[in-house]
């Protein structure tokens, strides 16, 4: 069985249709890249998958491990194994990063009927993963993302992903706002999380992120749907020729 199946997904925001029939199948172990121009609906796809309010699904289905994802609340989707790495991670004043991580991990475990993590076990895991991402443990005592640099915020997203160990990770423009060094650290973190059981969707406007996270399959997204699918070489082609051809094609 495939991990994620999106069939003819249509969605609108304030009566304006954004997604116009998306079809996508992600199997365990695969990394898919979705590339497309600004405003093509890439981020909307990520938001609809994770259950953000304000979007109306007007048609189609989405299943994760055979379960109807669209019927679930965002927290239930997360507990089922979906993870969205935000393009703009939120700052949460007053909530320490540690508290946030622990609350999230235990909430998911509870929903899956697993016992809560003991404090030493939790601390051990956080320290290990933070170290791999060169995150200063002191930073984890600070409120979530408050005063973090762009790179620190994205690394914090990857840290959450590592700790929550999702079945399917959706990375929304993880490269935006990062310089090349920060990008490399984030990409290395993501690469460590590639596994035969896990699927990933990497959403990006630019090809440069895909130099570091090499996808198995590349999709071109335009005007609310996938207009072309190919191997990793498709990304290079896009880099050279831009999206202009696809935009005309999708409009036609």
């Amino acid at each position, binding site marked *: 069985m495939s991990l994620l199946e999106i069939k003819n997904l249509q969605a609108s925001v304030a009566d304006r249709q954004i997604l116009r029939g998306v079809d996508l199948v992600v199997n365990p172990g695969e990394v898919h890249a979705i590339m497309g121009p600004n405003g093509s609906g890439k981020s909307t796809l990520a938001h609809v998958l994770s*259950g*953000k*309010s304000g979007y109306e699904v007007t048609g189609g289905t989405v299943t994760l491990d055979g379960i109807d994802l669209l019927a679930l609340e965002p927290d239930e989707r*997360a507990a089922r194994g979906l993870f969205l790495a935000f393009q703009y991670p*939120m700052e*949460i004043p*007053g909530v320490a990063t540690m508290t946030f991580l622990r609350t999230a*991990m235990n909430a*998911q475990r509870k929903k899956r009927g697993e016992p809560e993590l003991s404090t030493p076990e939790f601390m051990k895991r956080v320290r290990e993963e933070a170290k791999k991402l060169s995150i200063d443990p002191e930073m984890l005592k600070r*409120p979530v993302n408050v005063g973090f640099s762009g790179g620190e915020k994205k690394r914090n997203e990857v840290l959450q992903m590592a700790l929550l160990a999702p079945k399917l990770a959706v990375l929304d423009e993880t490269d935006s706002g990062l310089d090349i060094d920060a990008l490399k650290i984030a990409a290395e973190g993501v690469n460590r999380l590639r596994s035969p059981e896990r699927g990933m969707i990497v959403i990006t406007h630019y090809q440069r992120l895909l130099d570091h996270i090499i996808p198995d399959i590349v999709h071109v997204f335009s005007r609310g749907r996938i207009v072309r699918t190919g191997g990793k070489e498709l990304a290079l082609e896009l880099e050279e020729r831009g999206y202009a051809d696809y935009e005309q094609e999708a409009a036609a």
Partner: protein
Amino acid sequence: MTQATVTKSEAERQIADAWTGVKDRLPGAAPLTARREAAFKKFEAAGLPNRRVEEWKYTDLRALMRDAKPLAQPPGEIGRVRARAAGAILSGVDLRRVVVADGVLLKDVSDLGGLEPGLTIGSLADALTQGDAEVMGRLGAQSPAEKDVAFALNTAFMGDGAVIRVAPGVKIARPIHLVFCFTGPVPAAVFTRSLVSVGAGAAVTVVESHEGPDGLDYQVNTALEIVAGDGAEIDHVKIGTEGAAALHVSTLTAALGRNVQFRDLNFTIGGAAVRNQIFARCDGAGSTLSLDGATLLKGRQHADATLVVDHAIGGCKSREIYKGVLEGESRSVFQGKTIVRPDAQKTDGKMASHALLLSETAEADHKPELEIFADDVVCGHGATAGALDEDLRFYLMARGIPKKQAETLLIQSFVGEAIDVVANEGVRDALTAAVMRWLEARE
């Protein structure tokens, strides 16, 4: 010229009757009698504060008080039993309990043994009866709250309360808990007055809590005066957990000398209608005062925080952060006035009030005021009112945290900013736990 004819309200007539009946029996002799008389005249001339009085615009006491309850009787046996159990919100915290039940300081129920050297705690009624010169000199004299009518009513009717004195240079580590409770069994009115006098270079933490039964529409008018000597360090926390039908009017005054550190937290979750007024005045340079508030309201609760910070002298710093969480049809009021007198140069004053509206029908009124008569100052204010941030909630939910838990976490952090200023860990944890209980009881 036409003289406005003011028809007295039922409550105003009842207060006048009560005054006639009780004035000769109140504690204190000649100079105080005159002060009480003058205070009552102030009330008689102005009537109960109402919406036509700018300072009381959002809390119309005249309309809120449909009647004035008779003065409370001293607690009987059952009352004493209840008084012993009062203040449980801070159970487990190492505090020195001083219990004032139905307006009477109960020595046998209070923890007055083994006072630290330099600390004295007594009853106001005793001090007034004995004509204690220091108490008589300080009580309401040149008070920053002088002009307020609710405070004047307190001066007229005050019967008992605590008098706490800390000698110069003495640092009291164990917080003092003033436990105010109304025990019933029938609705009544309570007027308590307390005085905290802290000598130069001394330090003390005073926590006051107020409570009473949910089913009775009792009325509390309480006042606490703080006088701080040079270099004193004072932490004050007021915990408002009055019964659901109670009317509670509270006045806190603080007259600060030089280089004083004064921290105040006003925590309000109880009462039907609550007015917390604070009048703080910097009489010496170099002082820092922080006045913070955390208010959580539901149903039709009304809570008003009215602050006046008077920078009579320059070179002082004032900080105010008030947080309100409002559910149902509740209403919070924040009025913050910062006065900078003509010579109070180098004043640094900042004030912020924020309200989180959890329902469509809740209301938050903010009225910041700056009256600045000096030209070399830094003063500012900010106010916000809004719903929970949906994007923040989504972020938490996207990590697997259920909706209610996500909201609880966000509200807790919102209120936490104010509560975190409390230096005593036990008190801080008790308040955090009270917030958690309030949040868990949400629908």
